[in-house]
């Protein structure tokens, strides 16, 4: 490879030239930034400006480009130079638009711009153009675990898109829950009548599809590898094992119904008290005729009890049973009441609900049931007795009185329990105990591994990490199908409670994600959310101390261990968040274009005014996913914030290595503020755990600061959402005021 040649291009458009001394910036880029080529342009992002840069790349062999213009999030199409490494100095959103107007502020404005140019150049010096993972994984087949409505839809969609697909189904037939249904809730206009499940047609399409292979009576005995190179052992009930290699996996393992035997207070376990699945069985047996109970008696009056053992009001209201709403049960009960009404309008059907929730077009379906004469009663059911003459005791919440009702059959609308496999926290605990020699733990692990769905050979456990209530962890809004194991996508009720329509939509989404993963893996790129990123973690193993922090803290289970307990990076599983880089105490993990050095050198490049200047310097490490856009938007709305801050975007707060904090304080920064996403159960962190880990790491830094004679307030961590464009300003200004009160850092002037 030819020698590196560094170039800086400074834009004077958008008013930058009016307020900033571009000549000074050029001089800084040249003298301090050591840029070999320095040019300014009045309109850098227009065709002519971009051509200048392209010409230099082509003719002057420029390999590294620093663009000092607008935010790195702006003009990305104009400033797209895939053959060179690039840094961006944010003079527009970061300086021009946020520093107060007027000559009084000219000096601080120029100082800020000078620093950003220094930082851009310093970063560039440490960057390399990422070449992409040379270990390209080429398998593009897609494995679908679970042959229910979600799984079949995912398989069909993937196969129709031209990807070979393998379905693994535990049962002897395809269809899953849908095989147990007489009809399904309508999914087409006018949303008024129960519809055929459409399962037979779907199964026929699957059977006829040349790209789909089906394994029945099978489960996964082992799953190893990474996106683009998974190897799975498919074990048949008979014991035979088939090996398959696939590129990505869709886990559509669905749910089981909550066991009504756990609801004795609602008559669970008694005769003629059934769950919704039980009623479907009776309806299938009736085959369109009068629905009869198990004892053969024709049902003339039926009561549906909604939220049975759900939403914290399972019968006794003690908060036991399921805490959540399963979403489909109201519409399902409406459908089932119609089974009766359609067959004989004189049958009394009463639905007892506390809140009737019919998402989607369910309101039309609800209305249709009312027209058919189904009675809906807002009530809290207090007792159910089964037997020949069932009785439901309840409190009518509209009439505010206790009452009871007789029925031939009581249907409990119980919830969905996800089949997401083994809970990893429990697994980790048992593994530790087993490693410690506990025989009991060893036996328990054997049982647990049998219950596992995927049987991953990952160091971090055999299944997907679970969220609250046992659903596969994924972000409800931002990335619903992306689980915390790259290349494995959850679809359907395994990730949140839902009905068939939602599950099949989910399946399409998950299939698309799987395709994205295999395509990116085949090109040596990151799958998502940094889709297409060519950088990948590089580790200098000779410096590794085997502390295991990277393997434990990686939110995506990308890092295994070899026999000598060194980390083994599976780049295809990696999402390039840099959490491992932030975790590594000896700093041996880096990316070509993002490393401890690229950020560290920016910190050190800032020109530090002396102790008596009354110009504090505050470093802000801002998550590039939410906090940095929020800061950009503050600039867009011309909201003024302190010109004493220097902002560096980071891939994720999880990638913040504590050495940066130390470096910043040592070089005289008066405060360091980190801005990351919301953490906790309702996290908004794009890398799930990054923000949480950063908060945890920083909580430990206070003692170190005290030892250095610094106030703990000099390092703070904030949770910021992308919509917080006004709040970030308040946070910054308040913090600057706080630092002013604390006084300048005593560390200034030591270097």
């Amino acid at each position: 490879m030819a020698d590196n040649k560094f170039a800086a291009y400074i834009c004077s458009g958008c008013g930058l030239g009016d307020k900033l001394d571009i000549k000074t910036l050029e001089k800084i880029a040249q003298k301090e930034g050591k840029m070999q080529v320095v040019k300014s342009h009045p309109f850098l992002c227009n065709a002519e400006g971009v051509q200048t840069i392209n010409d230099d790349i082509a003719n002057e062999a420029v390999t590294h480009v620093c663009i000092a213009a607008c935010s790195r999030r702006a003009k990305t199409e104009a400033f797209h130079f895939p053959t060179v490494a690039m840094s961006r100095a944010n003079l527009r959103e970061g300086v021009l638009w946020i520093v107060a107007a007027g000559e009084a502020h000219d000096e601080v404005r120029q100082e800020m711009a000078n620093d950003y140019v220094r930082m851009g150049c310093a970063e560039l010096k440490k960057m390399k153009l990422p070449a992409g993972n040379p270990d390209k994984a080429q398998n593009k087949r897609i494995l679908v675990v679970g042959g229910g409505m979600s799984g079949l839809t995912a398989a069909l969609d993937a196969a129709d898109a031209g990807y070979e697909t393998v379905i693994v189904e535990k049962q002897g037939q395809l269809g899953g829950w849908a095989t147990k249904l007489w009809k399904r809730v309508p999914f087409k206009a006018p949303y008024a009548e129960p519809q055929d499940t459409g399962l037979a047609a779907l199964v026929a399409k699957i059977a006829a599809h040349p790209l789909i292979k089906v394994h029945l009576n099978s489960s996964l005995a082992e799953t190893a590898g990474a996106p683009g190179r998974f190897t799975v052992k498919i074990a048949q009930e008979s014991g035979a094992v088939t090996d398959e290699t696939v590129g990505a996996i869709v886990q559509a393992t669905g749910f089981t119904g909550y066991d009504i035997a756990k609801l004795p207070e609602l008559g669970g376990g008694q005769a003629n008290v059934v769950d919704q699945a039980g009623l479907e069985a009776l309806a299938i047996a009736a085959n369109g005729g009068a629905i009869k109970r198990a004892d053969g008696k024709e049902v003339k009056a039926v009561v549906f009890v909604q939220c049975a053992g759900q939403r914290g009001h399972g019968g006794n209201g003690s908060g036991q049973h399921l805490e959540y709403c399963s979403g489909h049960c109201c519409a399902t009960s409406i459908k089932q009441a119609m089974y009766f009404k359609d067959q004989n309008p004189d049958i009394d059907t009463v639905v007892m609900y506390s809140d009737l929730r019919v998402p989607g077009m369910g309101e039309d379906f609800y209305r249709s049931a009312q027209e058919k004469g189904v009675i809906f009663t807002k009530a809290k059911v207090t007792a159910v007795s089964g037997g020949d003459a069932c009785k439901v005791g309840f409190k009518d919440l509209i009439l505010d009185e206790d009452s009871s009702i007789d029925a031939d059959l009581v249907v409990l609308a119980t919830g969905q329990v996800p089949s997401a496999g083994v809970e990893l926290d429990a697994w980790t605990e048992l593994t530790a105990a087993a490693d410690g020699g506990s025989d009991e733990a060893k036996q328990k692990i054997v049982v647990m591994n049998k219950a596992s769905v995927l049987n991953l050979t990952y160091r971090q456990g055999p299944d997907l990490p679970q969220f609250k209530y046992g659903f596969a962890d994924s972000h409800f809004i931002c990335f619903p199908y992306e689980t915390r194991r790259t290349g494995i996508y959850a679809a359907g009720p395994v990730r949140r409670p839902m009905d068939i329509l939602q599950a099949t939509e989910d399946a399409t989404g998950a299939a698309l994600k799987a395709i994205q993963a295999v395509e990116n893996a085949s090109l040596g790129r990151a799958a998502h959310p940094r889709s297409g990123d060519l950088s990948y973690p590089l580790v200098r193993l000779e410096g590794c101390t085997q502390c295991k922090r990277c393997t434990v803290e990686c939110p995506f289970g990308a890092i295994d261990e070899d026999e000598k307990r060194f980390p083994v990076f599976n780049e295809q599983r990696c999402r390039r968040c840099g959490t491992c880089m932030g975790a590594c105490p000896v700093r041996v993990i880096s990316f070509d274009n993002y490393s401890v050095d690229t950020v560290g050198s920016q910190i050190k490049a800032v020109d530090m005014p002396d102790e008596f200047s009354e110009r504090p310097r505050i470093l802000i490490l801002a998550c590039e996913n939410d906090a940095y856009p929020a800061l950009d938007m503050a600039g867009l709305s011309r909201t003024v914030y302190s010109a004493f801050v220097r902002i560096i975007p980071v891939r994720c707060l999880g990638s913040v290595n504590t050495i940066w904090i130390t470096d910043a304080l040592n070089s005289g920064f008066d405060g360091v503020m980190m801005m990351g996403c919301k953490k906790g159960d309702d996290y908004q962190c794009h890398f799930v755990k990054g923000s949480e880990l950063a908060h945890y790491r920083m909580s430990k830094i206070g003692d170190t600061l005290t030892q250095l004679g610094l106030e703990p307030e000099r390092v703070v961590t904030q949770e910021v959402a992308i919509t917080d464009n006004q709040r970030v300003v308040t946070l910054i200004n308040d913090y600057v005021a706080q630092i002013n009160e604390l006084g300048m850092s005593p560390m200034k002037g030591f270097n």
Partner: protein
Amino acid sequence: MSYQNNFLKEVEERVEEGHMVKMCMQCGVCAGSCPFGPDWEHSPQKIFMMIRAGKREEVLGSDSMFMCTSCYNCIVRCPRELPITHIMHGLANYAHRIGMAPKGQPTRVFATMFWNNLTKKGRVNELTLTLGLYFKDGLVSGIKTAFGMQSIGLGMLLAKRLNPMEIFGGHGLKDLKGFHAIVAKAKEIEDRKKGFTA
């Protein structure tokens, strides 16, 4: 039997707009919108729930429907577009027809008096209607009320807004026989539709 279809069906068949009762989704907007809300024993929301709960005696014996002032707030606001005001009047009428409406309920008494007065001659005789109202609770209270109102009565007399001769029956429609036939036919049709035998 409670929470069964019997009474709901009866309401559907025999009460004006009664078929819409089952479409109520119990949101309570009508109850919250009613300017007389606090003065009713049962809000429309409750009346509808009571119908579904099969509380026939309570619903038809309730005086709540008679409290409706026809302001139409509920109709305007009902998200399910139930003609609530009409259903209230329908229920009141039905309860009255089958003799279950509360005895002596002032609205019911006045409405009956008004109807009887109107259908006699095809015109409302204001003098007899007013006097009838004054004396509905007996001679003594009637005389008391009449005395209390005498200045208004004299004022109306002087302004020629009140003809004392109307007390002897007053004037009526030209074709009174035809009018009575129309009313009788209308009643016959309504009775047939709603299943009244009488």
